[in-house]
């Protein structure tokens, strides 16, 4: 994807667990890192990183609000997750 095409607007979405929400994956990773001898690790949180291509959109502000809508509608579960959207060309 994203390889060619001019004017390709792309959104970078970070989805992270809200504070206070259990993160079994982060915990397990933390545990495994300790097991591997990485002693100095204090905490690990695992989230998602999603890139969305918007080839037809050149207006960055519009792109951002569109992707925020996608987050609300599908990409994030807003009961437990936060999202942030950054638009780049």
């Amino acid at each position, binding site marked *: 994807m994203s390889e060619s095409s001019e004017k390709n607007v792309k959104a970078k979405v970070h989805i992270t667990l809200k504070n206070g929400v259990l993160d079994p994956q982060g915990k397990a990773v933390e545990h*495994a890192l300790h*097991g*591997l001898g990485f002693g100095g690790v204090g905490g690990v949180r695992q989230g998602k990183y999603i890139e969305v291509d918007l080839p037809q959109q050149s207006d960055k502000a519009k792109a951002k609000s569109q992707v925020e809508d996608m987050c609300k509608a599908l990409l994030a579960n807003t009961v437990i997750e936060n999202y942030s959207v950054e638009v780049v060309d």
Partner: protein
Amino acid sequence: MNKVSAITPEVIKTHGLSDDEYKRVLEVLGREPNLVELGIFSVMWSEHCSYKSSKKWLKTLPTTAPWVICGPGENAGVIDIGEGLAAIFKMESHNHPSFIEPYQGAATGVGGILRDVFTMGARPIANMNALRFGDPKHPKTRHLVAGVVAGIGGYGNCVGVPTVGGEVNFHASYNGNILVNAMTVGLAQQDKIFYSAAAGAGNPVVYVGSKTGRDGIHGATMASAEFDANSEEKRPTVQVGDPFTEKLLIEACMELMQTDVIQSIQDMGAAGLTSSSFEMASKGGMGVELDMNAVPCREEGMTPYEMMLSESQERMLIILKPGKEDVARKIFEKWELDFAVIGHLTDTGRMVLKFNGETVCDLPIDPLAQASPEYDRPWVPTVKQAALASASVKDVPWPEALKTLMGCPDIASRRWVWEQYDHMVMMDTAQRPGGDAAVVRIHRSNRALAITTDCTPRYVKADPFEGGKQAVAETWRNLTAVGARPLAITDNLNFGNPQKPEIMGQIVEAIKGIGEACKALDYPVISGNVSLYNETDGSPILPTPAIGGVGILDDLDTMATVAFKAEGETLLLIGQTNEKDGWLGQSLYLREIAGQEKGAPPPVDLVHERKSGDVVRSLIRGGKVTACHDLADGGLLVAVTEMALAGNIGCRLENLVAKPGVLFGEDQGRYLVTTKDAGTVEAAAKQAGVSVSRIGATTGKALSFAGQSVELAELRRMHEEWFPAYMAAPK
């Protein structure tokens, strides 16, 4: 063809063709091939597609029986299981990819074998997996076990086919070359079986499933001139499985198969579009013309070479009957899968590929297939070892030896593995992992298929012929032990480099042993797979001809399990133990307790095998026994312990000589049964000329013998602890 694709000796070599083979290419073509053509030759003449080293010997295997509908040669084998139904199954290896990327390698192995089965019209009803890993102490082993098991589960669970059994062994010979063999069993109507031979000039050639990417393209592409620029972008990539798409593909194909539009169909397996289109045309004596611009591609700028050699997953090739494109298209669109007419059959006998209006490949199909190399590679027989005198083997008190064996890597419970597999979906799993064979009910009936995979590589190493026989006999025994009538096998022959005469000798003798056992047991080979060159730094794996066996239970209510059912029942040993003092050569006792791997492996007396199995099966069917278990790794006491643990009922043993060979020897063709009616069991065995002895009674919560006893709780702990503890240790 386009650009600078000079066929230099270097390019030829990186395509794995020998000088002789390239000469043959020139003869077939009467000119130099271009790169696309060379790629196709290299794939079609590879060991994997052409079986050039093993063909001569594979031909000797028995492949027929009145119940065999289709033997080796198709995507999978087909047997008649009565009532208009057929069982379709096959086992296949994904060894090398699983070593590089264990999760995806194993996952795509499962995906591939599923397609081999459903392409023939069968709904997959069970998956099995036969796994071999290196020494548990090897730094890579844990990571590989974790990845492979997660990958098999990740794929099988998602597609909704239960993974009901398999085997796991550890041995240092697999340190750098693990084995991942996956088997699928499917169920079809006998009058709705689909084959792969193309017919009908003009018929449309249709591509369905996922798009084609640059997955798993022949490593050779790297070295060829065309790919020097931009090599980062075009690096051959690991195949990633998409089980969700596979599930949709299964449903779409099942739906399509209910219509009357398919002329022939084949999955795109190894070497995807090349081998599928080539084999379909070749089998049907047809030609094929494909428009490479019509192939659905996932990435931009893909060349015909890449499209033909891509191993992208979840794709099928279908020849439709004339004018049926729309019926088919609708179904694949409903399931949101790619569908493209990419060409048509011709009567020219040639494979012609067009790209951007140019002909980029024009090969004669039949001559290419006919000229495909077949080798009679030199081989030497394995030097046989003398039988080991059991009396010479270190004797340790049985409780200690038993506890060690129950917790050793090759016997410890595989619960950690199978609990990661959905073994219950489809609601027909009548016997879950942990018994002798998995039992999967034929949907909405009271009949069932029994399925097992077995091989004891240390036996095969010591004596490939006896080891080959043993692998087949053990599957037959495991099917028998649940009460099933064994019907047929699939084999997955994993060996080292066939260009070494010792290795070729292992292959030849193991195949002979397999064939002999199949003949004696009326138990033909209906499908299989060969995986050679399993070596690292010149050191080969243990020869591992994994056998998958399938049998039928005509009445599920008579199924036997290994678990002791009640206290106060008699335990009997059926079958012959080496009259001197049991067979310890190549046994696990010898390896784990005495620290030796030597001697001849236990011989398999196929006449006796058949007699003892037939008695056991008829006793099970007659409802005369309450539990049954065959004796395998670890011998008698291990088998008793497994029965006791499964039923959580102990046992008092008697009438046994307290010698390691008797307690832990691995003499073949033996079963343990419990019964309320020992007289009947004895009479039946005697009548059949099979030895039988009462060796104990079920009682309490411990195993006791010769004045010593071990609590089941302790044995259970030893048995259950090893795997999870091993896997939980830091990576």
